[in-house]
């Protein structure tokens, strides 16, 4: 059986530490908290949640095409079962985020997904092979962007053939 409800304390602690988050914390149900933070505060909120609030497990990172912007949701969990989904967004013109591999070394696969599928630029991402697209994939094509269609790949195929 799970521990007594932790969500109200999570909400309170976050609001006290970061007053600007007041309107941006949503408790969807038991064990599910969603928090939205501006990019400039992301690093401090992320560090606080991971280091001081016990969200020591990274489940994955979800990337989103939100039209003008790209979104990234970091799904963090406590060993007791609560998931805090911390989201932020960047403009498509400068889609730069910082790598969280200093906190979670295994996050590189999830960050490479953001790079390959949505066109994020991740600063501090360790060198390594790309994931999950093949090496010969045409540059500038991001399959999870809403305007991407498989037909764009066929048109580009001749150009990038090796």
């Amino acid at each position, binding site marked *: 059986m799970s521990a007594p409800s932790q969500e109200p304390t999570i909400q309170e602690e976050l609001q006290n530490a970061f007053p600007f988050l007041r309107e941006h914390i949503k408790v*969807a149900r038991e064990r599910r908290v*969603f928090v939205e933070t501006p990019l400039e505060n992301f690093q401090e909120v992320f560090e606080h949640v991971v280091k001081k609030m016990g969200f020591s497990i990274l*489940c994955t990172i979800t990337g989103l095409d939100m039209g003008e912007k790209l979104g990234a*949701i970091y799904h963090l969990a406590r060993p007791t079962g609560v998931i805090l989904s911390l989201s932020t967004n960047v403009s498509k013109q400068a889609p730069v985020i910082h790598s969280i591999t200093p906190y979670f*070394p295994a996050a590189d*696969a999830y960050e490479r997904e953001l790079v390959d599928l949505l066109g994020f630029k991740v600063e501090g991402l360790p060198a390594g092979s790309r994931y999950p697209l093949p090496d010969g994939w045409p540059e500038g094509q991001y399959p999870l962007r809403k305007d991407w269609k498989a037909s764009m790949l066929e048109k580009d195929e001749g150009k990038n053939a090796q």
Partner: protein
Amino acid sequence: MPNSKNSDRVRISVGPQHPALKEPESFTLALSGEKIMESSVRLGYNHRGIEKACEERTYVQDLYLIERVCGICSHSHSTAFIQAVEEIAGLAVPKRALYIRSLIGELERVHSHLLWLGVAGHEVGFDTLLMYTWRDREVVMDLLAALTGNRVNYGINTMGGVRRDISEEQKAQILKAVDILEERTRYYIEVATSEPTLINRLAGVGKMLHDDAIRLGAVGPTARAAAVDRDVRRDDPYAAYGELSFKVITSDKADIYGRTLVRVGELMEAYSMIRQLVKNLPDGPVTVKAPRRVQAGEAVSRYEAPRGEDMHYVKANGTDRPERVKVRAPTLANVQAVSHMLKDGYLADLPIVIAAIDPCFSCTDRAIALREDGGSKRTMDWLSLRSYSIDWHRKRGIDFTDLNKRFRAGN
């Protein structure tokens, strides 16, 4: 003779297509003699664009597509996905349906763990174990086929519940099968804890200590075998797990032997859960009416698949198609630990180290002959296949009749 200079190292590639691998992935190894000094992994050869495809299909179509993310833990993915959709849509799924979901989920775990035990046996040259476990696995495969209509990709889930109910006769059938499986599993536990061939081959191989498992984000039996006491079924209960009593099996051996003990232990827990689910199956409907369009919203869903935690994120935009579906399968979380486990091990251990995280590869469906009209002479049942095999060998001068008689007499 130890070699410390990098120039003495030999670099070899294993994969993406290689006899030692069951699915396409590519390892680059730096060897000093037979010892693996460094390794790196390249994935993505199986990328099929399912997340993108989900955005272009309706929720119901997606359910069937998502089920095909994996050929072994198909019910895991389908349940993880539909739980998220139902949460956004605000559907109250009937209790009986939740029990059936957990029931199919535990039967799936039984077939997956028995499959793994066989693969592990095969990878260390203990093929008798493969033959035994895969024979016994047929008991649960037949049961899944009887309950859902399919050996894999059961299609039991639907939005708002399950598509098939369970009858009283089926309940009896399940309990009977579980008795057989439990007896066989007791035998495997005996083999795993007393057979020196297996213990000596697996103990100390593919080491990953507790802190490394946590640091590298390992999940499922791979993490639990390094004493990481985590299981989504207990920590973040879904379906009927909140109402079941079960133990989370861990081991502090932190090697492949530990991963074996965790999986056989989980088989025994699964039988206990299946009995509880059958005994306490609530009355009532198995589905509620679900809308075609799902209101805008988002949900995160987790599921303890046989290989570890599945995570799905679904974002809805008010139409009949999702805005975004994100799937994180347990292998992606565990494969990053493989490089760590390979380091300082021997090249010959590579196949079992990789197999020990139970990476997910599609298992091939095969047909079951359900027709009894006698029209198909090409299908053989178990007994006729067995007698065909005995005759085939006898014609070539190999006859075990006397030997079998002596065994039965206990000589």
